[in-house]
């Protein structure tokens, strides 16, 4: 009896509180595991009773018409020609038989030699293939390792660049607005800028598979961010859909395929191009 009597209020509060937290965490643990992205699944279990193959042959019997006569004429001529050809053929056949017999003997000899050679060659081939396979494997392994290494290096580069960019932006923030205006107007060569815009436009355009965009006038827009290497920073972001999913997908693929995009080395120019708005008209003008 005494067991259940609580000592004091504070302890009761503490106990209830810890119980509540435990319960909350428990519930979170259960329900948080439930989220996941869903891939469209076309699941259909079908059992087909019979393939719809139906057959009915309906024979029709009719007499020939007059035109058949003309064909009979031509078959007559054909027949006499055939008879002539036949006689010739028989004479030819006799000659051929003789020659064939002679040929056979010679061929038998040649065959034997060939076989022996073939076996040799096959052995060689198998060895070669095994070597090649080995090499391929080694190369792939090498490539894997190299790529991983590259990825690490690039990752470091990216982080460095991002850090620098952040620094730059912070610096610019501190400067008054007027100075910012100057930077936009003066100091940037618009000719160079347009050149790179054209290069980027051409490279992406080559990859737009407009067959997936129907026949009518259509337009869609994406926003992208680039790294100085020309690669995308993150995924392309669609800001206006064409309303045709296969077209949206095709254009997004085109952008991804176009990496690395041609970009200027000059950091001033690059900064103008690092964020771009791309407007697509896959089927031409309206």
């Amino acid at each position, binding site marked *: 009896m005494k067991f259940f009597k609580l000592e004091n209020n504070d302890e009761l509060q503490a106990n209830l509180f810890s119980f509540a937290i435990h319960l909350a965490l428990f519930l979170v643990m259960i329900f948080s595991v439930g989220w996941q992205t869903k891939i469209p699944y076309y699941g259909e279990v079908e059992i087909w009773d019979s393939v719809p193959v139906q057959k009915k042959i309906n024979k029709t019997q009719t*007499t020939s*018409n*007059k*035109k058949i*006569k*003309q*064909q009979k004429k*031509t078959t007559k001529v054909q027949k006499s020609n055939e008879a002539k050809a036949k006689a010739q053929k028989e004479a030819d056949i006799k000659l051929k038989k003789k020659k064939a017999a002679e040929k056979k003997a010679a061929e038998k000899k040649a065959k034997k030699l060939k076989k022996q050679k073939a076996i040799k060659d096959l052995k060689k081939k198998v060895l070669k293939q095994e070597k090649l396979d080995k090499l391929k494997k080694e190369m792939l392994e090498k490539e894997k390792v190299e790529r991983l290494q590259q990825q690490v290096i690039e990752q470091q580069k990216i982080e460095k660049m991002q850090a620098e960019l952040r620094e730059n932006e912070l610096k610019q923030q501190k400067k008054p607005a007027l100075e910012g205006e100057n930077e936009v107007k003066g100091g940037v060569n618009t000719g160079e800028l347009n050149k790179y815009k054209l290069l980027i436009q051409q490279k992406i355009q080559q990859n737009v598979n407009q067959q997936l965009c129907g026949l009518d006038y259509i337009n869609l827009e994406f926003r992208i961010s680039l790294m100085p290497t020309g690669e995308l920073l993150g995924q392309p972001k669609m800001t206006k859909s064409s309303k045709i999913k296969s077209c949206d997908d095709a254009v997004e693929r085109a952008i991804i395929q176009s990496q690395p995009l041609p970009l200027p080395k000059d950091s001033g120019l690059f900064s103008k191009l690092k964020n771009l708005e791309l407007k697509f008209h896959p089927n031409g003008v309206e």
Partner: protein
Amino acid sequence: MKKSILLTALLGILVAGCSSTELQESQPLNPPQPELQSMLSDDNEGTAFTSPELNLLELRGNPLLAKDKRSIYFDFNKYVVKQEYMKIIQAHAKYLNEAPAANMKIQGYTDYRGSHEYNLSLGQKRSVAVKEALNSFGVDDSQIETVSYGKEYANLDCVEQNSCGEDRLADIVYTVE
């Protein structure tokens, strides 16, 4: 006396009967000949040699109506009846006019170039052209049917054999003599 006339009459009819079946060997279903019918029925007063029948026999003997002259040939993609065939057509027209029970079918053909349906139409144009020529000689449409086989019987090698002209024709066929 009467018996011998009857006998010769019967013989004459048999002869006429033989020659008429020859003309129709391409058609399996033949309605009986008008002349034969009139002979078989007892009610018929006349003899075998009445004027209309005699005329028909005479007309049939016309060499222009011979079987090997019943094809009218055309130029490529054309359906105009050439002048050289007009005499033959006239002879047929005369026959048809004299034998109102006779019926004719004109079958049009083309060479193999082009689509099946378009050539069916082209062949039809050819048979219609022959029909219109017959119309111009006074023949009524009720005695003529025009059909087409288009390119269905054309020789696919006619270009190599230089014989495409032989496929472009209209054939005259009597469904009822």
